[in-house]
């Protein structure tokens, strides 16, 4: 009896020790990745990174054109994707909460949410780049928008469902038409959550590389023309990191640092927003 008891306790201790070890390994990995990134990134970071164009191999330069390119692509993608996502989420939570259509859309949306982003790139290549005959910044933005939509749909629906029904009933009792109940009452109540969704979507696309490779392509020079290939930070990192030139690799690390901090800052702000909402 005593031996059995001891064996059970030993087993318990081993497994619990393993779970502690697993957590340390997980956290350790995060620390190692961030530490290397900080170390390598800061040694490549300088004012020139933000003020000069991407250099040819062997020359000094910066990342100004890809940074601007990334900003344009991201903002445009959010501008295209957010309204569609919010409208779709509104239908699912407000009009068709118990519809067949809604459950199908929800299922498909969840799949799109984690579908491989490179497939999105192929899709936009087929429907935009190939018919137009050339790569373009616009195609890149649309590809990113396709990734934004499912994220926004999901958070909008989730947040609108949380809005208490009494609010809708009170507004409706005043004779408010449905569309006004939604836009003036429900949207305001769910605002923080919906903004969180948009921020998370922005964080997600600002590091996306695969869908841009054959839509926006890349551009060595300054260009804000949406109808021409456009540089972006992730594709430049991809190109520079795999190159044999030391200067380019250093710039790639600096770019990686910029992206990671943008993404982490966005997701932390998003978290803080949703946390302040749940507490109040």
């Amino acid at each position, binding site marked *: 009896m005593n031996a059995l008891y001891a064996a*059970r306790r030993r*087993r*318990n201790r081993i*497994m*619990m020790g*393993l*779970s502690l*070890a*697993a*957590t340390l*390994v*997980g*956290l350790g990995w*995060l620390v190692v*990745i961030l530490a*290397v*990134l900080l170390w*390598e990134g800061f040694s490549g970071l300088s004012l020139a990174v933000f003020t000069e164009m991407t250099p040819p191999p062997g020359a000094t330069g910066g990342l100004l054109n890809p940074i601007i390119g990334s900003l344009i692509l991201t903002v445009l993608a959010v501008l295209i994707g957010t309204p*569609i996502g919010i*409208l779709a989420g509104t*239908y699912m939570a407000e*009009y068709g909460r118990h519809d067949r259509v809604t459950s199908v*859309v929800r*299922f498909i*949306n969840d*799949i799109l949410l984690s*579908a*491989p*982003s*490179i*497939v999105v790139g*192929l899709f936009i290549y*087929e429907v935009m780049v190939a018919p137009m005959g050339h790569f373009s910044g616009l195609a890149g933005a649309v590809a990113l928008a396709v990734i934004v*939509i*499912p994220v926004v*749909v999901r958070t909008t629906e989730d947040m609108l469902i949380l809005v208490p029904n009494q609010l809708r009933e009170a507004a409706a009792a005043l*004779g408010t*038409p*449905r*569309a*006004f109940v939604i836009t003036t009452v429900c949207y305001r109540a769910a605002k923080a959550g919906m903004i969180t969704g948009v921020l998370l979507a922005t*964080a997600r696309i*600002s*590091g996306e*590389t*695969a869908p841009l*490779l054959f839509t926006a*392509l890349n551009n060595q020079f300054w260009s804000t023309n949406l109808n021409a290939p456009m540089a972006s930070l*992730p594709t430049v990192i*991809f190109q520079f*990191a*795999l190159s044999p030139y030391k200067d380019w690799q250093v710039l*790639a690390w600096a770019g*990686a640092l910029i*992206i*990671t901090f943008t*993404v*982490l800052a966005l*997701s932390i702000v998003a*978290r803080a927003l949703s946390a302040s909402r749940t507490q109040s």
Partner: protein
Amino acid sequence: MQPVRRRSVVDVALQGDVIEAYGVAARAKALNRLRVIDIIFRILTRAAALGVLILLGGVIISLIDGSLPALRTFGLNFLVEERWNPVTEKFGALAPIYGTLVTSFIAMLIAVPLGLLIAVFLTELCPMWLRRPIGIAIELLAGIPSIIYGIWGLFVFAPFLQETLQPFLIAVFGNIPVLSMLFAGPPYGIGMLTAGLILAIMVLPFVTSISRDVFDAVPPVLKEAAYGIGCTTWEVVRYVVLPYTRVGVIGGVMLGLGRALGETMAVTFVIGNAHRVSSSLLAPGTTISATIANEFTEAVGDLYTSSLIALGLILFVITFIVLAIARYMLLRIERRIG
């Protein structure tokens, strides 16, 4: 605080009262306008919701359309042919499919036990005040863009493996009959094993956060009953929590698998892009997504491009099935708990 006056429904209603003095017709006109806005808004939202379905349909149709030339030329042989030769225009998808499956398998082999153990730690052992920070830290791992894992893998992780783990594996398993085939050849650093390990790190947060969520959803009564009859923490996890949440855990694992299968940039950096099926995990290989990322912009000729799109179609079909199963499983556990 005085609320900001907007042109709201209240204004419209007040207007209606004023208008009434002038006649029923004008009032009906105002109400009608509201009804039209209402209908338009409803139609817009419905169109957007259906747009999500159209998006998926568009992806499938465009991929099938783009891959038709390749599928017509090679037929089903495309799936089992190893050769990938742009010069003679002979293409087969076996090597990328094999690489995708092997790297994802390695990733899941490591990430699933690790993720489950972390979830156990977070739900059973961890002091309350530490749960949120550790949970957030693990989720930050999921937020780091895949290209960062790629550059880190290429410059830090691969050289590290080349000097430590890979020579060790070769030395240990080199003389054991079957295992020596898995760990044959020189330690390149890059290769399928490295890609699998990087994928494991990337998938870990997904497995962890979903397992934690479903573990948290176990009714406390069940756990307390088990503790009450003297179960150890491990026994509670093994015989109460895991059986209760099995469907959800499988859903989380499948979701992670979907990620691993489709992951592009991190793998592209460290896989080595070699089109061959090799039994050794240390050898360079390729995956579907890495092949597309590496070769698409340089592909000349319709057949080459079309073969790459066909690869994309295969990837999409595989991940669609995996993700559909994952969602179905998660829906089932949601219904049971919720």
